[in-house]
């Protein structure tokens, strides 16, 4: 075994079990073809019954001194074999490679560069695609930068994953309790302690679609793995003190949902600025704020909340009477006498609020999720979370808000107007995830944080005040969360064009560029959250040419 001084930079660990000949050699070839040479490949045979495996392993051991082969005396399953392979590793980092997959020739080179650029990184991952037995590539997955909230509802980092070995050992390696989702569990455990996580936005891993692999056969290949994933998420939530249970999506095995499991209910102040406008809602003349309050009172299962309604003064006495009737003792009315400023109105409401959490809500919202407040508190009470928002749909069911994304430095709503059941790229609409900002039409934040950053900026009296607020939270190191299971109806005019003024855009750019020039929760290969054509071209153009046939004398 190599000493610490000659330890390689990367140990690629690969458990082997009855690997078909052609894909085994393709896997080996992809490692040997690495343009970065400081690696070792740790192959651990999990007592494969197929006779050709022993011959292949004998041969491969003599091909390259960097390839090390060991064999288990009895079959132990993926976790046992992975842990044994891990025990063979001497590298500073371990890279996980399945026995039937392939690495891009520059995979370790790019990983090394990214890890050198951020020396504190303890975990790194790249984009990936799928590859069939004939070597044809498909389905590139262009991922966001590190998004802890997404990781709790989708194993999105997956391949290629590179961990600092010392940290993997510190967390106890692969846990047999989560067999099948042991890699997800490991990512969760490692990232709970990691100083930094790096994403390399390049397709560095090719996941083989065989009939026996999850990439090819989906849930049917490993049904137990998805249940293990659910348990891994719940165990993770317990470790980090997140009061949540986890449920599997009934339609998509790769999607999970968190359900709040709060034991107590801190006071939430729902701050609703209003001018008392009316419009037709479902073909009925409706005073929006009354409708909003009614839906909150009728739908919410959360008990401990107050309604802080900031009304333009002088207000219609009949409206105030109606609000008192709906809100009862929960209602606090705040007169607003200054010229209109959404930010100032919210700040005035927040000043009158008593709750631990502030829930900023537009008066043209209808609540459609009974446990909406619980869901928001579940996230908002986490120290590292700054703001939480949900999925807003228009009156006709189409998507309005699924988290804010930045394009060219300015914020926008991806998938605006798409069907309500549109899944988004890589299930982007259906999984919880981090964004740089969420809309202030429905946003929860801790009051202490709101006060720390000075509330909403009056520099943006109408537009961008919510995004500006979220970005100031990001600057404090807080994350912003989009929760798809928190659905609301937003009676925003469906035909409304963007009313953002040029001066607002300029001021926003002045304040927030270059931070918003590249949205870390998107991907350089995506535009409006869809893969760019040029990315598809460059991805297709340079497929690696790897040896897919066994060496001479080796049976096919």
């Amino acid at each position, binding site marked *: 075994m190599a000493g610490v001084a000659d330890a390689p930079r990367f140990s690629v660990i690969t458990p082997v079990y009855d690997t078909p000949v052609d894909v085994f050699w393709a896997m080996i070839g992809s490692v040997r073809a690495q343009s970065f040479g400081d690696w070792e490949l740790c192959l651990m045979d999990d007592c494969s019954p197929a006779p050709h495996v022993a011959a292949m392993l004998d041969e491969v051991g003599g091909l390259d001194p960097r390839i090390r082969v060991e064999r288990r005396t009895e079959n132990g399953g993926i976790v046992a074999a992975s842990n044994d392979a891990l025990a063979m590793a001497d590298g500073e980092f371990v890279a996980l490679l399945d026995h039937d997959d392939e690495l*891009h020739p*520059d995979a370790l080179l*790019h990983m090394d560069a990214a890890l050198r650029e951020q020396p504190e990184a303890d975990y790194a991952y*790249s*984009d990936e*695609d799928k590859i069939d037995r004939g070597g044809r590539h498909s389905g*590139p997955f262009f991922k966001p930068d590190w998004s802890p909230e997404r990781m709790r509802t989708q194993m999105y980092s997956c391949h290629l994953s590179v961990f600092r070995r010392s940290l993997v050992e510190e967390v106890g390696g692969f846990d047999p309790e989560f067999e099948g989702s042991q890699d997800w569990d490991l990512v969760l455990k490692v990232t709970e302690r990691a100083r930094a996580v790096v994403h390399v*936005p*390049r*397709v*560095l891993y090719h996941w083989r679609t065989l009939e026996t692999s999850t990439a090819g056969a989906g849930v049917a290949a490993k049904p137990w793995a998805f249940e293990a994933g659910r348990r891994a998420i719940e165990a993770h939530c317990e470790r980090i003190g997140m009061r949540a249970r986890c449920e599997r999506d009934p339609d998509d095995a790769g999607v999970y949902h968190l359900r709040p499991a709060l034991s107590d209910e801190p006071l939430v102040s729902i701050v609703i600025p209003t001018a008392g406008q009316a419009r037709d809602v*479902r*073909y*009925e003349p409706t005073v929006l704020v009354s409708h909003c309050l009614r839906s909150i009172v009728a739908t919410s299962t959360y008990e401990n909340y107050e309604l802080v309604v900031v009304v333009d003064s002088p207000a219609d006495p009949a409206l105030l009477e109606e609000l008192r009737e709906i809100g009862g003792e929960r209602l606090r009315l705040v007169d607003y006498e200054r010229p209109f400023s959404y930010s100032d109105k919210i700040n005035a409401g927040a000043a009158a609020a008593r709750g631990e959490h502030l829930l900023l809500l537009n008066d043209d919202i209808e609540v459609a999720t009974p446990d909406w407040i619980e869901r928001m508190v579940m996230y908002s009470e986490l120290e590292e979370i700054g703001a939480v928002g949900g999925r807003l749909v*228009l*009156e*006709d*069911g*189409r*998507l309005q808000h699924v988290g804010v994304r930045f394009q060219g430095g300015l914020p926008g709503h991806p998938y605006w*107007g*798409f*069907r*309500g059941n*549109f899944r988004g790229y890589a299930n982007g609409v259906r999984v919880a995830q981090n964004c740089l900002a969420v809309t202030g039409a429905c946003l929860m934040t801790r009051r202490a944080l709101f006060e720390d950053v000075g509330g909403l900026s009056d520099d943006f009296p109408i537009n961008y005040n919510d995004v500006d607020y979220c970005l100031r939270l990001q600057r404090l190191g807080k994350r912003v969360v989009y929760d798809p299971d928190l659905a609301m109806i937003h009676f925003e005019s469906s035909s409304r064009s963007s009313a953002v003024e040029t001066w607002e855009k300029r001021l926003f750019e002045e304040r927030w560029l270059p931070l918003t020039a590249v949205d870390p929760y998107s991907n350089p*290969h995506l535009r*409006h959250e*869809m893969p760019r*054509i*040029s*990315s*598809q*071209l*460059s*991805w297709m*153009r*340079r*497929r*690696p040419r790897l040896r897919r046939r066994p060496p001479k004398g080796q049976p096919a």
Partner: protein
Amino acid sequence: MAEGADRELLLRELEERDAEIERLRGLLVAKDVELGEETGRRLELESHALRLISFARLGKLAVTRPGYVLRKLRERWGGGRG
């Protein structure tokens, strides 16, 4: 007596009309959702169509000015795949 009967009749008619209005309103709302579904689908298709148009433009450029396209691709992705 007759006046009371008329009143009851009128009230019943009113209730029936209200129920009918409610039913029609429900139909309108359902129709809106149906139209929304169609509009949403159209927007999704438009988005795909725009991507295809970009693809076609890029294809044309690749034929007429291949050097330019390659240079642009290299600039954007540093020549690396993915």
